[in-house]
């Protein structure tokens, strides 16, 4: 097996584990961060697959803005009492 295929397989395993964790853990913040990790690894895979345009979009939007939007939505759906911690 060549080095490049090994890198792809390792990164794919990391993505699949992160996606599984995102669906499994009870804590919503951890789950949102895990989805961000999946997006970040996806952007690395796009870069290795000779798609720099898509890699830039995914890194800026998928891993950055999307995570923040989810976190804001999570913040807005908490009860007022829990917020003061």
């Amino acid at each position, binding site marked *: 097996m060549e080095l490049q295929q090994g890198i792809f397989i390792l990164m794919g395993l990391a993505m699949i584990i992160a996606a599984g964790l995102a669906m499994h853990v009870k804590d919503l913040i951890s789950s949102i961060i895990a989805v961000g990790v999946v997006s970040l690894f996806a952007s690395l895979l796009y870069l290795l697959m000779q798609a*720099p*345009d898509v*890699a*830039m*979009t995914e890194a*800026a*939007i998928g891993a*950055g*803005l999307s995570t*923040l*939007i989810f976190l*804001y*939505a999570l*913040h*807005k759906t908490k009860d*007022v009492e829990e*917020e003061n911690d």
Partner: protein
Amino acid sequence: MIKRIIPAILVISIFFMLLKVMTNITPKYDLTGVSKTYAEQGASDLGAMNLVTAIVVTYRGLDTLGEVAVLFMAGTGIALLLRRKKKKKGSVAKKREASEILQTGSKLLVPIIMMFGAYIFINGHLSPGGGFQGGAAIASAVMLMFLADNSFKINHKVFGLIESLSGMFYVIIGILGLVMIGADHFLDSRLLPLGEFGKILSAGTIPIIYTLVGLKVGTELASIIDNMKGDLE
């Protein structure tokens, strides 16, 4: 129990569908059909170094216009659903301030990130990047300002003006193609001369269109973030 069995059956059937797809894929060894035409004629046709940009802006320009419209509709829907109720001024709760490092660093970094975003979409026809990536970079600069300063507010009038004017000019450039070149040349980038291959002022209207798309996407994503953030009571 039944709530576990039905999803399991569905997921297993999706698995077999994907397996069927998987076994029928043959890896490509050559460009075929429309991709081959684009790769062979893109440079001489449109003068853009980045073929993805050439496809997004000109060959598939109508799709991009539709996509910008979808983004606009999503942004409008979010603004409509999360419109703010007028609050009493006095009842502003105390919020935790951002840390010193974040405040100072954001003052230094925000102009640089904005300039980088502009650089990305102006150079969209020469290097990787373009309107969508540059717009996202600008929106992340606005996001950094939101994180650093609790009381920071964007100027909705200016943002709305930039957004609607850039959308309007995008459509006007498209219609100019119809008028000046021919009936089937909507959003054709050959309105302006193609110029020298590889220079920043080349490729016809591609840099102009991508600048407009960058401004539109940047302001739209920033407005979406602003609406999602809301007042954070």
